C-alpha cells in the first residue's frame, strides 16, 4: 500500500487512468474491478447502484452499471473486455460501502477475453507509475472543486 496526497492505493492491483477503476487479477484469467479512491470520493455520497447481471458480455469502455450519488449520476465503465461472472450483492444492498472502503468493496468480476489481454498493458501499477499519475489527478479534481477541504 502507498499513500498519495492522503489517499491509500493498494499495490496488489492495476489502475486504469481512463476510468479510475482498479483491476485485480484473479485465478483463471478473471479480474475483479472496483472504484479507485478518487473516483469514490469525488462522486459524493453514493445513494444507489445498479450492476449488470452475471453472464453479461462487456467490452472495454462499456458500462457494467450505474452509480447514483447525491448530486451525480454516471456509468460504471468497464476497464476490461470479458464476461461478467460475479456481482457484489453487498454493495448493491449498501451502496455507501463504496464511499467507506472502495478498495475492499469490489463491483463485479469479469472472465477476461484472452484475445484482449493487451488492454491490461495500458494500466498502471507500482509506486513509480502510480505516484505521478495520481498526484496530477488529485490536483485536477481539487481544482474542479470536487474534493472537500
Amino acid at each position, binding site marked *: 500500500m502507498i499513500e498519495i496526497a492522503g489517499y491509500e492505493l493498494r499495490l496488489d492491483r492495476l489502475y486504469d487512468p481512463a476510468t479510475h477503476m482498479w483491476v485485480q487479477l484473479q485465478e483463471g484469467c478473471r479480474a475483479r474491478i472496483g472504484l479507485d479512491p478518487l473516483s469514490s470520493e469525488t462522486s459524493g*455520497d453514493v*445513494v444507489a447502484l445498479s450492476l449488470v447481471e452475471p453472464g453479461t458480455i462487456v467490452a472495454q469502455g462499456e458500462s457494467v452499471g450505474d452509480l447514483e450519488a*447525491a448530486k*451525480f449520476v454516471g456509468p460504471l465503465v468497464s476497464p476490461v473486455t470479458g464476461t461478467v461472472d460475479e456481482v457484489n450483492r453487498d454493495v448493491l444492498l449498501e451502496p455507501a460501502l463504496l464511499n467507506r472502503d472502495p478498495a475492499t468493496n469490489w463491483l463485479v468480476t469479469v472472465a477476461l477475453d484472452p484475445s484482449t489481454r493487451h488492454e491490461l498493458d495500458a494500466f498502471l501499477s507500482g509506486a513509480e507509475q502510480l505516484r505521478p499519475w495520481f498526484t496530477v489527478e488529485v490536483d485536477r479534481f481539487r481544482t474542479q472543486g470536487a474534493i472537500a477541504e
Partner: protein
Amino acid sequence: MTTTLPMADATPAVRQDSPDWVRISYASAIALRFRSGRFSREFKFGGINLLLSYDSGCLSDCGYCGLARNRPGEYDDKSFIRVEWPLVRTDEFIDRLVRYEDRLTRLCISMVTHGRAYPDTLELTERITSKVRAPLSLLVAPPTLNEERLRSLKAAGADMIGIGMDAVTEDLFASLRTNVPQGGLKWDQYWETVAFARDIYGPWHVNCHTLVGLGENDAQLMDIFGRLLNREVFSYLFCFNPEPDSRLGDRPKTPIERWRRIQLAKFLLEERGLDPAAFRFDDDGMLSRIRAPRALIDEVVADGYAFMTNGCPSSGGEPGCTRPMGSWRPTESPRDYPWRPTAEDQAAVREQLDLEALIEPGPGPTRPAHLCAPPAAGRFAPNPEV
C-alpha cells in the same frame, strides 16, 4: 483517505444547535468544499441554502416535509428534500462564504418553527451580511414573526423574504399543516406575513413557495399565481417529491407532463402577460388548453427560462438560488433546470409539453409589460457559462 472536516460529530456530547451550528444543503456543502462530490453536469453554482437546526427539531408537522417532528426517527436522521443536509459549524461556514465570495450568487436562511428561530435568524443575518456582500434571503416561519421582527431582519441586511406557503388553497393548507397532530399553522397568518413583508421589503422582494402536487388542481395554482402577480409578489414553483417517511410518502411524485405545463402556463401569465382567460381547464380544473400565438409559445420554449428554477436572483439579476436536484434525482429528467436548457433539454421539454394537444391559436399578451413580473429565474448576462 482520512480528512478531518469541521463537520458535526456522529454522537455529539453537547448539543449542536443553531446559531452555533447550521445545516446546509448538500449542493452548498459541495460548493463550499465541506463535502467532496460533483454535479452530473458542469454549471455555475453559487446559491447557498442554510437551515436552522435544533436538537428538538421543527415544531410544526407538515404532512409532506422531511423535517416534521411527528414521525419515526430522530431529527438528525431525517432528510430535507431527500438528500442529507450536513451540519456545519457557523464560524467555519462564514469563513468559507468569505473564501468563496466571488462565486456566491444568493444566500438563504430557512427558518423552522421553533422558539429560538427568530433571534437566531437575526443573529445569523447580522453575522453573515457583515462579512459577505452576496444578497441574503430569508425563508421565514410565520408563527415566529411579526411586523416589527420583519423590519429588524431587513435592517440586519436581508433583502428578500420567502414564505413557504406550499399548499395553494386554504382547505389543502388546513389538511396538511393545520389540522394535523401538532399542526396549528394558520393560513391567515401566512397571508398576513406576505402582506407585512410586501410592505416592508417592497415589490418583487417577497416570494411565496408554491408546491405542485399536494392535491390542488391547475386552476387553483393559476389563481394563486395571478393573485400574487397583482400584489407584485413572486410565486416560486416547487415540485412535490415524496419524502419517504412523511405522511405523504406514498403520494406519487408530480408527473413531469403536468409539471411542465404548469411551468409554461405560469411563465406566460406572469412574464409574458397572457390573459388569464387564455388558460382553459377541464372539469377537474386541470389545464387542457392554452390559447396563444404559436410563435410566442415556440419562442418561450426555445428561450428556456420558463423551465429554469424559480429562485431569488443574484445582485445583478442573474439566476441566484437554483437548488440543483432539490426535487429530482440525478437519474431523472430535471424538473427545474439550474442551468439554461440546452438544445437537448429543449427537445425533452417539447415532448413533455405535447404542444400540439395543448396550444390552440389565440390572441397575444394583454397585460402591459410594466405590470408583468420580473424574471422568476433571473437572466444570464450575454454569453452565459452554462
